[in-house]
């Protein structure tokens, strides 16, 4: 029980500290000010996050981090998702956990931003790749790096292991594509770019990032639903609060069920992910189960939220659309629902269901 109490206390602390960055009442002024501009996030906030220990959340205490677990990290991701936070914390914190000690300090203090660059094809979780690291030089092309324009360096997967590549190194090119949430994906091209070999594996990072992203989706769908419920309770048409119309009530209930399923599914995946004696395939299957549900549910909830808002939901000015845009981005990131259903089928033996 002592462990459980410590865990509960940690989660409470995470929630409290998140309130420093994420406005409690869903104030989106900061989000709107940053969106559609590069790098799309705020270095001052970034250093604040570092001070709160978030970037080192998954880094062992001995290595200068907070040494907290997956559950704490996911709770933070949930809060950040609810707040539509543009900072690529999930990515940076996981990359930080892979960096050797000599690179850690400026990263953990928030002065240097290192983002992972592993993806080469859309809707893929495959860390295998065509990029090469030969003689300290990296050649290859990486896509879909969230907020990559804000990185000082990239932790790059190659067929020859990980490499740390500075953004301003010779042979490095960066192009960006804006995304609906106001951020961007970066495409990184490296031609004989100097890269320092790093002895670590990207695969666990991708898994954990997928799970954390599922939590961000959970946070945002909860918030979007809460905003929608408020609207149903205040908007009057035909002389009645629209939330009194049975068809809308039932629709809201179905959304609530999707959110409840998501939370249960995600919490179960965290419990699996923490069981290091559980087979790796089974833990990954649980993550796929969670991400598939979260991706689908977040889209269902935010789409319906627009509909339940009526015309005002279609304005860019009103809050609710921001949640749909963010859901579009995160639902597809680290594999969309279809990909994770496929992966679940491949990974989960049928007998486990009984």
């Amino acid at each position, binding site marked *: 029980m002592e462990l459980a109490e410590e865990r509960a206390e940690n989660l409470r602390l995470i929630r409290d500290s998140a309130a420093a960055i994420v406005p409690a009442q869903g104030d989106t002024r900061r989000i709107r000010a940053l969106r559609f501009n590069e790098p799309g996030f705020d270095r001052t906030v970034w250093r604040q996050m570092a001070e709160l220990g978030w970037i080192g959340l998954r880094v062992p205490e001995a290595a200068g981090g907070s040494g907290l677990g997956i559950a704490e990290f996911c709770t933070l991701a949930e809060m950040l998702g609810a707040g539509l936070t543009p900072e690529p914390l999930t990515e940076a914190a996981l990359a930080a956990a892979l960096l050797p000690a000599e690179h850690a300090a400026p990263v953990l203090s928030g002065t240097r931003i290192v983002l992972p660059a592993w993806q080469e094809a859309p809707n893929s979780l495959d860390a295998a790749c065509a990029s090469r690291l030969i003689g300290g030089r990296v050649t290859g092309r990486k896509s879909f790096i969230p907020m990559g324009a804000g990185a000082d360096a990239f932790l790059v997967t190659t067929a020859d292991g990980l490499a740390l590549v500075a953004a301003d190194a010779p042979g490095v090119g960066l192009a960006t594509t804006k995304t609906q949430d106001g951020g961007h994906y970066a495409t990184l091209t490296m031609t004989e770019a100097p890269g320092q070999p790093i002895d670590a594996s990207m695969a666990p990072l991708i898994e954990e990032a997928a799970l954390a992203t599922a939590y961000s989706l959970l946070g945002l769908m909860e918030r979007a639903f809460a905003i929608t*419920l408020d609207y*149903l*309770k205040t908007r009057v048409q035909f002389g*009645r*609060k629209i*939330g*009194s119309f*049975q068809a809308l*009530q*039932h629709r*809201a*209930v*179905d959304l*609530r*069920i999707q959110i*409840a*399923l*998501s*939370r*249960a*599914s995600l*919490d*179960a995946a965290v419990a699996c992910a923490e069981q290091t004696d559980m087979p790796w395939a089974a833990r990954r299957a649980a993550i796929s*189960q969670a991400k*598939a*549900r979260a991706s689908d549910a977040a889209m269902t909830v935010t789409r319906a939220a627009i509909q339940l808002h009526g015309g005002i939901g279609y304005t860019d000015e009103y809050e609710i659309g921001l949640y749909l845009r963010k859901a579009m981005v995160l639902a597809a990131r680290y594999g969309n629902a279809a990909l994770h*259903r*496929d992966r*679940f*089928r491949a990974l989960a033996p*049928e007998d486990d*269901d*009984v």
Partner: protein
Amino acid sequence: MPAPHEDLTGLDDVRFRRTVRDWIEANYPPELRNPPKRLHWAENKVWYYKLSAQGWLCPGWPRAFGGMGLSAAQQLIMLEELERHGCARTNDHGIVMVGPLLIQHGTKAQQDYFLPRILSGEHIWCQGYSEPNAGSDLAALRTEAVEDGEFYVINGQKTWTTLAQDANWIFLLVRTDKTAKKQEGISFLLVPMDSPGITVRPIVTLDLHDEFCETFFDNVRVPKANLVGAANKGWSMAKALLGFERIYLGSPKLSASAFARLRPLAERMGVWEDARFQDRYTALRLDLADLRALYQSFADRLRRGETLGPDVSMLKIWQTELFQRITDLLVETAGEHGAELEPMEGNRALNPAGLFLQARPATIYGGSNEIQRNIIARNVLDLPG
């Protein structure tokens, strides 16, 4: 009161589960495993008697009344093990409804008379709640009981009386004050099924089973001593009884057992490897996996000693609609076989149409899913009425 049985309340969860599992495996009649339909008394009384002899018939009753005195957490483990082994549901209205009712609201005399007879299997109970015009709107019930000296005289009709043809007692909600508002003026009466004036007519359901009955009351006389609790206060007692049932209705069991039929059927039909089938199959599998996760999160709350609120109805909605989606796929996959009356090729495991029809009422009984959604909208989401 029967002699006290072994006290299992002190076991830790792992040992308790093991004890329960071992005994079930050793004692459950193999021919009754995973019955395709609700069993009649004649079929499953052997199991009732075994549980009775073991002292395990009434997990939730206090030990002082002959029950096992289990915590909610232990009851859930017991339920899980019974479901895991595919045990038939017994004629359990006495156990889960009448017993708890009498323990809480009955007189000493009622407890002394009725509880041992439930434990022994001498009294098999059925439940007289629903009426033809009081289904979803149960409070609209019209069966009335009029005082006549030391008796009540009952007239009216109940319907959906589960296994009434097997029961020798019925617990009834009746209207005892016609002038009161809907939910008031309702009382709880215990009535022997052999009382003159009671007629039972089985209802044949879509799957051609006779699990339910209509029960007619024509000037049926019962002593006032058969009133439970105060007159006109039956409604709140009845509502309170439904607590545990709500998580029971959300158990993944029905969906899981239907889901388990998909693979053998698909293999038989030669579509198991088909990508489209696999896609739908996996989506349902995940729907079921997430149902399990959600069910466990409610069960955890019970284990922690919490009382479940109306949000537990989410389980019932998702479970029953998933059950139907699974059986929809069974029927589609079976082609022409999906419309056959009997299991396919005599193989009880391949019974797509039967399961499809059995799944139909799941969204209707126990409070229709429309009613459940109304309740969640009002009482969980706090939406305006």
